[in-house]
């Protein structure tokens, strides 16, 4: 008799090679993605042990974290960055791993290109030395970020050792209101759970709001799972998922497709399966969101006022330290605050749908003079779509420029750094102190909110600019 299982249980349990009593599970990894920043020490590790990569065909390398977003055809100026990129290329070549380096047609952010080329598949276990690997959970995969020691484990043995997380389901019914995007849904959830509310759990997102979302939207939601402490988040695959995956370079073809589909169609949570924790929200109450503090849990509906310290979870000292860094006060309204930078991009919001949303607001308007805008596509494929769909023309007409793909100002490892004290509206995933450059201040928001800020020069409710479009 087989017990009822959650989606997460089905995928996890079928990948356990070995269980250790009072210890972790040995989990087999189907797809491993590596980038230049968290892999060099792992490759060095297997070199020092003199062992090969066990399954080079299951590992994929792309350069993204530490790459320039202009003049990618020129040599990388920063010697440390250039060295890291060279190491990735050399390691990939030495071990026979696919490598999509700077300038390669398939290059882009690891979590954008994985799905684009069909490396990401339902029911797979996917890891990468990057916490936003949770993105791939949008396809019903178990996907999560790992440390460099674990990157080394996967290279050496195609396995990692992890205690099985607990199961949480977040149900959201209702539809997204006008001006609300998947990013707002995710920021709303994090604001309710705090940045540690899902630590120790793997989340399944269920309900109408996620069913109705595009694959891009689901990726945005799953991407941000880590920001509430969850190892990852996943959504049961459906026709939309299969349609997206079909025909991509690395997806199964012919008889293999049929075989894969037979497995993928079993990937749902059984009706009476039990979760360790279950939460339900009404999606119709979610507004366009904005953050006001220094972690992604410090978010609120854009028209609200910054909460008073005694009204929030956690210590007042930490809360006030955070507001002091942001140069905001308890009770402040965010609306109308002048901003300096806008960043559209990242593995959270660097996909074609995000550029469409941004363009829908800036169309027929002009970039505000006080705003520096960095528009960074998640990949060359996204960049091509932006051009083919005529979005580039809209952006150019409105005074915006498009940069080349990469992680860019999301973590500001390259030159795309927001200067100290400057305020940025950013579609990325973290508003930590100095995240976008030492001393920088970040407001996390959707592409619509970012676009509204870009054309008005201040924090603006995008719904005000959408009125005429209805």
């Amino acid at each position, binding site marked *: 008799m087989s017990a009822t299982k959650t989606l997460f249980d089905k995928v996890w349990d079928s990948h356990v090679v070995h269980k250790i009593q009072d*210890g972790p599970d040995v989990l087999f990894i189907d797809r491993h993605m590596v980038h230049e920043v968290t892999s*060099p020490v792992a490759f060095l590790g297997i070199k020092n042990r003199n062992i090969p990569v066990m399954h080079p065909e299951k590992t994929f390398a792309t350069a993204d974290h530490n790459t320039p977003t202009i003049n990618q055809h020129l040599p990388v100026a920063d010697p440390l960055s250039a060295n890291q990129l060279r190491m990735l290329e050399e390691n990939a070549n030495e071990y026979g791993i696919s490598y999509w380096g700077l300038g390669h047609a398939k290059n882009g952010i690891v979590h954008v290109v994985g799905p684009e080329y069909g490396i990401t598949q339902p*029911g797979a276990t996917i890891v990468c030395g990057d916490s936003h690997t949770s993105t791939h959970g949008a396809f019903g995969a178990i996907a999560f970020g790992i440390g460099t020691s674990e990157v080394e484990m996967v290279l050496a*043995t195609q396995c990692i050792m992890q*205690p099985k997380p607990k199961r949480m389901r977040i149900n959201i019914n209702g539809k997204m209101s006008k001006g609300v995007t998947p990013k707002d849904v995710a920021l709303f959830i994090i604001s309710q759970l705090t940045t540690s509310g899902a*630590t120790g759990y793997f989340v399944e997102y269920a309900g109408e709001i996620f069913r109705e979302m595009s694959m891009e939207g689901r990726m945005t939601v799953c991407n941000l799972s880590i920001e509430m402490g969850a*190892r990852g988040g996943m959504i049961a695959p459906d026709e939309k998922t299969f349609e997206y995956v079909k025909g991509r370079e690395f997806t199964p073809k012919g008889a293999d497709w049929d075989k894969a589909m037979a497995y993928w169609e079993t990937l749902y949570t059984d009706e009476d399966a039990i979760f360790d924790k279950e939460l339900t929200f009404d999606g119709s109450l979610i507004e366009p969101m904005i953050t006001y503090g220094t972690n992604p849990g410090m978010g609120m509906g854009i028209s609200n006022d910054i909460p008073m310290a005694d009204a929030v979870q956690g210590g007042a000292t930490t809360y006030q330290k955070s507001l002091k860094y942001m140069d905001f006060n308890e009770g402040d309204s965010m609306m109308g605050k002048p901003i300096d930078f806008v960043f559209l991009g990242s593995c959270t919001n660097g996909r074609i749908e995000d550029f469409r949303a941004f363009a829908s607001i800036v169309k027929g308007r002009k970039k505000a003079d006080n705003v520096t805008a960095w528009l960074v596509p998640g990949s060359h494929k996204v960049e091509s779509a932006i051009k083919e769909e005529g979005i580039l023309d809209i952006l150019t007409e409105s005074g915006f420029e498009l940069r080349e793909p990469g992680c860019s100002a999301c973590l500001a490892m390259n030159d795309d750094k927001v200067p100290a004290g400057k305020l940025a509206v950013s579609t990325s995933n973290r508003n*930590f102190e100095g995240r976008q450059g030492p001393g920088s201040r970040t407001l996390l928001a959707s592409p619509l909110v970012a676009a509204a800020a870009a054309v008005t020069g201040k924090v603006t409710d995008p719904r005000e600019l959408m009125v005429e479009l209805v």
Partner: protein
Amino acid sequence: MAYDKFNILTSTAVPLPIENVDTDQIIPARFLKATERVGFGDNLFRDWRYNQDNTLKEDFVLNQDKFSGKILVGGKNFGSGSSREHAAWAVYDYGFRCVVSSFFADIFRGNCLNIGVLPVQVSAAFLQKIFDAVDADPSTELEINLQEQKITLLPTGESESFDINDYKKNNMLNGFDDIDYLLNIKKDIETFAENTPL
């Protein structure tokens, strides 16, 4: 890479009573450009330790001579954010062998265990006792006994037990790492790989 064995650690502690200390504070992304695991301790808490002109921020705890030791004590949700193992490397390289908090972010905790830094999770009340004791007297010593899974405030003898699974405990007591284990079951993994659908 096998690491130092951990048995009993007796040391003074460095208190950081801030919640949600994230990995970008522990080590900012711009210091992740190395290709070897060296020198990360220099940039531990870089932007809290140094002003932008590289002068010391005198009031930050790591810059106060009265606080030192191999134990870092942080507020709730320590290590949230990215998966960068560099954060754990920076903690280790600076000289810490143990981090105490009332709650750890998942990936950071795993990374610490994988490189030989012991994460010790205590109750919020015990954490506050440690902060108070160290604040009142920075020479206060803590004892971390891994075998007994016990943390003790030595001056008062107050103690609390902490959790760690037997597998990881054994690894830390002996300085073993996961790759040693995985290589030993390589045949099982190969058999499994032959039967995976993807």
